[in-house]
């Protein structure tokens, strides 16, 4: 795992994990994924210069009081690219991170050579209401998010110390700030998805119980030309449940779409 570096994006401190070589790829983690460098990132680092920042309030990044809305996070990451002098990148996001990535792509799709959304939340899908994770105890939470519960161990907290519990609470708070109500979606996003001109891969777990395949179909319909790839042994987090296969698929998709200047 690379050492985290601390950068400042328009006065907001950000912990950044960065490793690998190749074209730059910005990876936006899901809830609970901040500050982690797992097999998925490790594999991508073989083909990309992987940038994995922790969202404000997640991992080692302190909470940012100014963040009130999901679009604040999207602008925050566009600012992060400016800060690092990265004009164009490959953009990937999982779950909550996929939501942020989709918001960014509706704002500035010309800056992304490719877009990978792994079981994103963020839009309202007819006939589906996301289960309310904030009210769940751990066993129910794991059963909702993971098809393979052993994969959850990768996100297990190191201990139950007061500092660790406070970090978990801070992460939940940062997520709730932008996702409590409307719960895990932005009512304005769905119509805007048609603005995305970036080649888009939707990577989806076949057994996702948080955002099931009916959601994937809605995303595929809204993003012009989007490709859907389903991972048969995964739930909501295929990049944790089948990291090798998902990393390979992402690499293949992105590198086939090398940037046009």
């Amino acid at each position, binding site marked *: 795992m690379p050492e985290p570096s601390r950068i400042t994006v328009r006065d907001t401190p950000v912990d950044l994990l960065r490793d690998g070589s190749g074209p730059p790829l910005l990876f936006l983690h899901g809830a609970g994924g901040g500050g982690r460098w797992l097999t998925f990132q490790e594999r991508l680092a073989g083909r990309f210069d992987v940038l994995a920042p922790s969202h404000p309030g997640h991992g080692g990044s302190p909470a940012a009081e100014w963040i009130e809305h999901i679009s604040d996070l999207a602008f925050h990451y566009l600012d992060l690219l400016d800060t690092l002098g990265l004009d164009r990148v490959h953009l990937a996001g999982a779950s909550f991170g996929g939501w942020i990535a989709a918001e960014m792509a509706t704002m500035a799709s010309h800056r992304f050579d490719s877009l990978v959304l792994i079981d994103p939340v963020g839009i309202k899908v007819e006939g589906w209401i996301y289960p309310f994770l*904030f009210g769940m*105890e751990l066993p129910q939470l794991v059963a909702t998010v993971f098809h393979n519960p052993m994969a959850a161990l990768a996100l297990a907290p190191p201990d139950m110390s007061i500092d660790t519990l406070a970090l978990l*609470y801070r992460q*939940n708070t940062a*997520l*709730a*700030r932008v996702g*409590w109500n409307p719960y895990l979606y932005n009512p304005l996003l769905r119509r805007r998805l048609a603005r995305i001109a970036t080649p888009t891969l939707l990577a989806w777990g076949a057994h996702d119980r948080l955002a099931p395949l009916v959601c994937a179909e809605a995303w595929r319909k809204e993003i012009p030309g989007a490709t859907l790839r389903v991972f048969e042994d995964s739930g909501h987090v295929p990049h944790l449940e089948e990291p090798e296969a998902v990393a390979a698929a992402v690499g293949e998709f992105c590198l086939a779409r090398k940037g046009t200047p």
Partner: protein
Amino acid sequence: MKFYYFHLMPYVMDHDEPSSWVTLSNRHYDPAVGHTLYHQYLDQLEFAEALGWDGICVNEHHQNCYGTMPSPNVMAAMLVRRTTRAKIAILGNGLPLRENPLRIAEEIAMLDVVSGGRIVSGFVRGIGAEYYSTAVNPTHSRERFYEAADLILRAWTEPGPFAFDGKFYRYPFVNPWPRPLQQPHPPVWCPSQGSSETVEWAAKRRFPYLMVFTPLKRIAQIYGEYREACERNGYTASPYQLTVNLPICVAENDRKAEAIAREHALWVYHVGLRMLPPYWQPPGYTTEASLKRLLATRGKMPTELTYEDLEEGGYIICGSPATVRDKLRVFSDELKAGIVCSGMNGGSHEATLDMMRMFSEEVMPHFRQDAAIDETASVGR
């Protein structure tokens, strides 16, 4: 000392569900039973006035069997016309839970005018579970509380119309009719469980602080912090700013009182307050500093408290009239609390009325040196 009779209006039942809040299905609620309960509970509150209680209290909770008063102002409205003397304390309205808190300013003013100025207006944030039941974002809880309180107080005191442009609440015209009868406004109380932010906020405004269902040791500590905060703000706290809410169980002798409390008073803790851990602390409801303090001093969950814990910890007062008097003196003489709010549960409506009568005859008269004082005269405003 002043006595307020407090009611939760519980829907007393047994169940095996993991939570009595948020998810306990309302198919368990039988409206015919509810009809009887509501009338018994309102009768008890009205009876409290007849027996000499200084005030009667209602409160707000949502989607649970612990307390069936989602709208405390509705209950207060029923009491206003059936009573003539007692204060009616609404403890309180959950300010952040409202999308339109100006409505609270209007409703309290209505009640105050009709009651001839007998309303005490509690301002609360609501407990954590409320944010699951109302879908209000708990990370906004504190900010919405302060902003709504500011709006309501200004609506009561500043001549309208004026514009209010807050972060959560925005009105081009604030101009509520009626205005409250009590001037400058009905006394405001802050029922709370001791967060240092609320202590400071209440002390600064001379709003009485009400400790709810808290062990004696912690009450003493928070009262100390509140008194210090008052001194920092340039005045000494009146006893009528220090209030406590705890159940009382009184009977002919200690043994009988204990038997009743074991059978009936424990329900509040073991069933009424049973809830999933996430409901206690929704994300952002508590500041990180408060959360760390809570974790460091982590006590038992309500469902883990034994009768002995409640009795010895001073969560409840239980015993013969003499024993109850002795225990109350800890509040009046040592803690210098001026107001005790308490509910009683004898196990049946009739037994509860009997217990209330015994308390009013054998306990209350021993604490009446301040009978001529209006406890709301100089505080809460």
